[in-house]
């Protein structure tokens, strides 16, 4: 999360929560002052206690002040202030698309006719037909992500596999979107500057993994994700192979519905786009996004970090803090 103030930006503003540590630090320093004042007053003896107290108060004050300043400037350094950025525009040479398909049981829901999964594979066929350039790969996920077709120009191999996608392909259970996205990221070929896009077909009934974390990982790798949400908000019952509706532990029929909230959260990331497969313009809209994102440029914004100013002061204050302790004053301590 970033925020911007003029030309200075704080990359990690969450770091400022560490300032709360000053409360226990100041409290402990105060307690040590009280204790030291009392004990040193006792052991100083009749003739030296005043001198000892003077030295103690002065040393305590400066060492505490310097330590607190060290904490403040360390936190400011860790928050990572950055100056104005330098924009770098690179052009990408082609686009690689990985279709990531949810093949969990809920994708057999018929609220999107003929079924959520069939709608997804039909859309994939449409993409293959309408996108005349680019390379394609195919990954499916249930309990984990599995690479089916590595990225290739050979569209016919992809088309041949699509009719066979089903929950019965693999025995793993559940729905782990994080694993699916991670497997998709590993499917892209290294060593080429091509625009990389994952097109995700899912109803969002995610039971395992941290989908947001993998979406952020994709962002850091400059990979876009277009989510095609398949299903309806109202949901539908899901049936097993015997034709019986699936029930939960309490015997209630499970209703599987489209998880809009997950997609809306993910689409806050600048590399994630969300469309609904039921929209009549979903194919055109997604192709427009693909063309826009892959057409011309990958922009990287390199900002110079200004942390060293704060860190240098933090180190200086720490050295002075050590020195206050090391060097005796007035031949006392």
């Amino acid at each position: 999360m970033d925020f911007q103030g003029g030309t200075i930006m704080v990359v990690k503003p969450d770091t400022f929560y560490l300032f709360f540590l000053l409360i226990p630090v100041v409290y402990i320093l105060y307690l040590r002052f009280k204790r030291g004042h009392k004990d040193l007053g006792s052991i100083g003896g009749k003739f030296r206690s005043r001198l000892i107290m003077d030295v103690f108060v002065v040393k305590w004050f400066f060492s505490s002040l310097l330590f607190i300043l060290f904490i403040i400037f360390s936190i400011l350094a860790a928050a990572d202030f950055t100056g104005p950025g330098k924009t770098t525009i690179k052009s990408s040479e082609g686009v690689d698309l990985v279709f990531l398909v949810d093949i969990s049981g809920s994708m057999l829901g018929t609220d999107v006719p003929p079924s959520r999964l069939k709608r997804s594979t039909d859309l994939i066929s449409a993409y293959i037909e309408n996108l005349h350039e680019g390379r394609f790969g195919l990954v499916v996920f249930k309990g984990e992500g599995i690479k089916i077709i590595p990225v290739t120009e050979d569209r016919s191999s992809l088309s041949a596999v699509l009719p066979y996608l089903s929950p019965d392909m693999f025995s793993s259970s559940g729905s782990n979107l994080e694993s699916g996205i991670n497997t998709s990221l590993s499917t892209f070929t290294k060593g080429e500057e091509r625009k990389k896009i994952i097109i995700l077909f899912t109803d969002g009934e995610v039971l395992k993994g941290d989908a947001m974390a993998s979406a952020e990982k994709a962002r850091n790798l400059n990979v876009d994700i277009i989510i095609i949400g398949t299903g309806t908000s109202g949901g539908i019952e899901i049936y097993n192979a015997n034709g019986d509706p699936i029930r939960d532990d309490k015997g209630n029929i499970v209703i599987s519905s489209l998880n809009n909230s997950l997609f809306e959260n993910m689409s806050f990331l600048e590399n994630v786009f969300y469309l609904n497969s039921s929209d009549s313009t979903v194919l055109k809209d997604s192709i427009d996004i693909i063309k826009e994102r892959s057409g011309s440029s990958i922009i990287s914004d390199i900002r110079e970090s200004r942390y060293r100013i704060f860190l240098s002061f933090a180190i200086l204050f720490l050295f002075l803090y050590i020195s206050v302790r090391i060097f005796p004053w007035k031949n006392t301590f």
Partner: protein
Amino acid sequence: MITFDFPGMLLVIILLPPLIFLRHFWKNRGGRLSFSFTIWDQEVFKPGIYFSKLILFLGSFFFWLGLLFLIIANAGPSLVTREKIYMTRGIDIMFVLDESPSMGAKDFLPVNRFESAKGVIKNFVQGRDHDPVGLVSFGKNAVLRIPPGLDYDNFLAQLGNLQLLDLGNGTAMGMGIALACLHLKESTAKGKIIILLTDGENNSGEIVPESAAQIAAAMGIKIYSIGLGSSGKVPLEYTDLETGKIYRGIYESGYNEDILKEISAMTNGEFYQARSPAALDTIMSSLDSLERIEKRTRLNIKTRPIHRELILLGFILILSDFFLKKWIFREVL
């Protein structure tokens, strides 16, 4: 690899040893107060905390280690990764491998023809650099195993999984070549080749090798055909995949050399005879050097600053020492 933007800042580390000496070993250091025991009108000192010296040592160790991390962070450390970016397209290579039972002939000791062929294909692919490779295998039927792509790990995994007799008892060479051509159809590579490894005559499938070669020639695909094995009686062994039964016997080996020469000639390829593993190795090596194109590459250097991790780590270590000494040991200064 770690690099530093301001390596000169690391010179500050030179100050650490004298500071450590002054802080812990200097005879006249501050922070210590001698007093008359008779003035101390309290209880006798008791060793309060077990292993107190060890804990104090750990605390001091954390402090200096934390300071070291902060100094290193101030030098601007970054993790550098280098990625080779290919500016030119490689050539597409499709391997068409015979899986018929005769490939179990044991005249390619110490293994049979099939395992020997797999071995040389593996070495060939591992020596390639950014050339898409694919795999078709044939027995009674022909199957695409991997479409042409740059995922060499996936290719080698699929190659390793191939088994004799997986596609039935027959030799559909023409179908294998035709299937390879089909999956090279959409390739945009300037060079496309098929490397055919077989030891038999075409006796299955609807397409004869000559017709498949015509298709390849029309698509500009070269066919390098390698005839495996020697003529005459050879020992044979293979396992029936359905029953697990092992079959052994003597097999009258031979392939139609004229057909292989013809299909190579039609496509401007070459025909080779491999009667031993060494000969097969040599042939593949010469193919490897024959079909290479000059590739232009660029080195992409990515840097990831790691100063923030070091700052936080140093901060935590120094605070640990603070809490240890001020809270647990109640150090007053």
